[in-house]
């Protein structure tokens, strides 16, 4: 249904002509940049108001993590239960299973460090141009940087992800298979 890919010669021609057009045409240059940035799904000629780009999070990674937490730490079993029906001692006992397993999973698959090295409760100063996605301002947020305030939470940053590879036709939606003992 689609046309065969262009030949080497025609691609060369295309590259040479586009080279100059990109240099002179800023609008085209912006579109090409967008294409190269991974926005291949953007419709080629969709004109419209500039909108903040949103993307849907990849569901497989979420399913995979959920599966790992359930497998090692019984995460879903724990959260699906009605804790209100049990005593604190019973919830506590189960929480140990969840904590031990999920802790192991977290350590095995992620490297996590605090965003701010200072102990919580210390005064910190944020210079102009600080990373607002890594540090969130709260409370009396007025004026201009440098901002000085109290470190309420150190924050966490994942510095490395080591998730397992997944078989291509593995059904990730089954986060825990039913077990039937023969």
């Amino acid at each position: 249904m689609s046309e065969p890919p262009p030949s080497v010669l025609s691609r060369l021609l295309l590259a040479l002509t586009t080279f100059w057009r990109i240099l002179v045409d800023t609008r085209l240059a912006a579109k090409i940049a967008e294409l190269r940035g991974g926005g291949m799904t953007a419709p080629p000629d969709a004109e419209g108001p500039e909108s903040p780009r949103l993307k849907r999070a990849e569901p497989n990674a979420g399913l995979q993590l959920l599966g790992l937490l359930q497998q090692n730490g019984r995460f879903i079993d724990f959260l699906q239960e009605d804790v209100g029906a049990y005593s604190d001692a019973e919830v506590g006992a189960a929480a140990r299973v969840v904590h031990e397993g999920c802790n192991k999973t977290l350590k095995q698959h992620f490297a996590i460090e605090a965003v701010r090295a200072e102990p919580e409760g210390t005064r910190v100063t944020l210079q102009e141009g600080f990373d607002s996605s890594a540090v969130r301002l709260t409370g009396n947020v007025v004026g201009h940087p440098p901002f000085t305030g109290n470190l309420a939470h150190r924050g966490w940053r994942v510095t490395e992800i080591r998730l397992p590879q997944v078989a291509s036709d593995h059904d990730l939606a089954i986060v825990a298979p039913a077990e039937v003992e023969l």
Partner: protein
Amino acid sequence: MSEARYAVGIDLGTTHCALSYVDLRTSDRDDVAQDMMQVPQLTSAGSVEELALLPSFLYLPHPDEFPAGDLALPWSGGDGLILGEMARTVGARTPIRLVSSAKSWLCHPGVDRRSAILPPGAPEEQVARLSPYDASVRYLGHLRDAWNHAHPYDNLAAQEVTVTVPASFDPAARELTAKAAQTVGFERLVLLEEPQAALYSWIHDSGGRWRKQVRVGDIILVIDVGGGTTDLSLIAVTEHEGALELTRIAVGDHILLGGDNMDLTLAHVVNGKLTAEGKSLDHWQIQALTHGCRHAKEALLADPTLEAVPVVVPSRGTHLIGGSIRTELTREEVTHTLVEGFFPEVPVSARPATRSRAALTKLGLPYAHDPAVSRHLAAFLGMQVGATEDLLGFEPKGKSTFLHPTAVLFNGGVFKANLLAERMMRVVNAWLTSDDAPSARLLEGADLDLAVARGASYYGYVRRGGGVRIRGGTARSYYVGVESAMPAVPGLEPPIQALCLAPFGMEEGTQADIPPQEFGLVVGEPVRFRFFGSSVRREDQVGLLLENWSAEEIDELEEIQATLPAENRAPGEVVPVHLRASVTEVGTLLLEAMPLNGTEHWKVELNVRSSSDS
């Protein structure tokens, strides 16, 4: 063959395998570029992870158990078997399909190690079983595939590969290990004893300072307690032309006793408490309890201020909160069970308790009957009291009843627990004090989990002339049984004599002399000989005929078998032969039958189907 780029060391362990490598091109003298390979393996259905250790477990899945695509590995050509971490976790729930401790079976003298006997409890018609040898081939094959996947231009077959074996492995088990490695394509192969590998790793880690930490006259005791086995070796520090040398002077017996026994024992103790409370656990819950106890034990051994650590056996179903059973492991239980049970303070005269071996009615591994590592160690040091007699610069044994080590090197995950390492040192030093000998010191800084693999790749590097080598050769002398010529007496077995074929300490790549005794082999018919080994008779020379010996000094090994092919000979003809022993470059014992009138050599098989199974 092209020049190898890497020296690769493979720890083919009872419970875990690991692979370490040294880049020979970028390494120079003490500056060794060493790394551990991360081994991709299935961790659950459809999920592949890279881990530093490959658990030595094989799972033989039922065709309906997993979708075929869920068992895919990064490389193609799997045969549907599951290996590594996933095999261990899945196998805990379905033990009849799980092959574990294949290495202990490989050294089991009572079975044919090449017949499909694993898993031992599997229903024969339902589960296609594997031999202990096949299992070794699979583990090595997985490591090879993982390596070739990561190094597509440096095939593992072209590298210098060192595979480690327990020092206590018998000649047949060594040969099978070498054969397995050759089957998966390792052409440049050598075997190395694990305690030696641990010492090489320590030497490497010391970065040249080891020469200051040991001196001539030192005797290093390597105590290697792994997941399934305890392996003991003595290595003397000697001098040659002014340079320090290391000589391995003795190795211990094969003791099936390790960290897994300790975890099982603790689980048993805690399970006893639950039973007393009226709670009974099923098989699945006991597995979970063992797992929980291992964690609790590690916490208690790491933090001396803890008095008890809770252990929770989760419910099997989705109702985690209501169905879980909570108990705890106390310091008192750990101390009593582990420290006193496995490392008791006993006098050096203590010996392991033995039960007379039951008839081979049930096929099982010959686990050590006595769990006390201390007593096994006492027996080893007592037996080897004369191990340094031939060496210059060592104190004569005098009146002492055991060999005095001057330094101790630990290996194996069990000794990550300081409490256990300290106790072991205290036991050894109490023995030394009772003999008015100076205390032994601990060689610090050992890498308890990865030392064997790392030491093996370092050995591959120093073999090329980069550093100190541990010498020693074979740690046993070997004998073949000869029936003495006397008239047959009905009902009495003719007395047997032992003819020494291989002296103690034969180095790799050497041949023993040919003993003058002749043996008659019948062409076309397998002829069996009884076969013996001794770890203490250091002076016996080839051709010596022993009439009497004590059970402590000579062990009977598996029978060996010679078969003369019928080429150029009439079947049934009796051909007189000589038997000659040599040690191959790989490090295995080779026995050959050589006809008196001819130049042929026939290999004598070390691994023979045992006569107890038909």
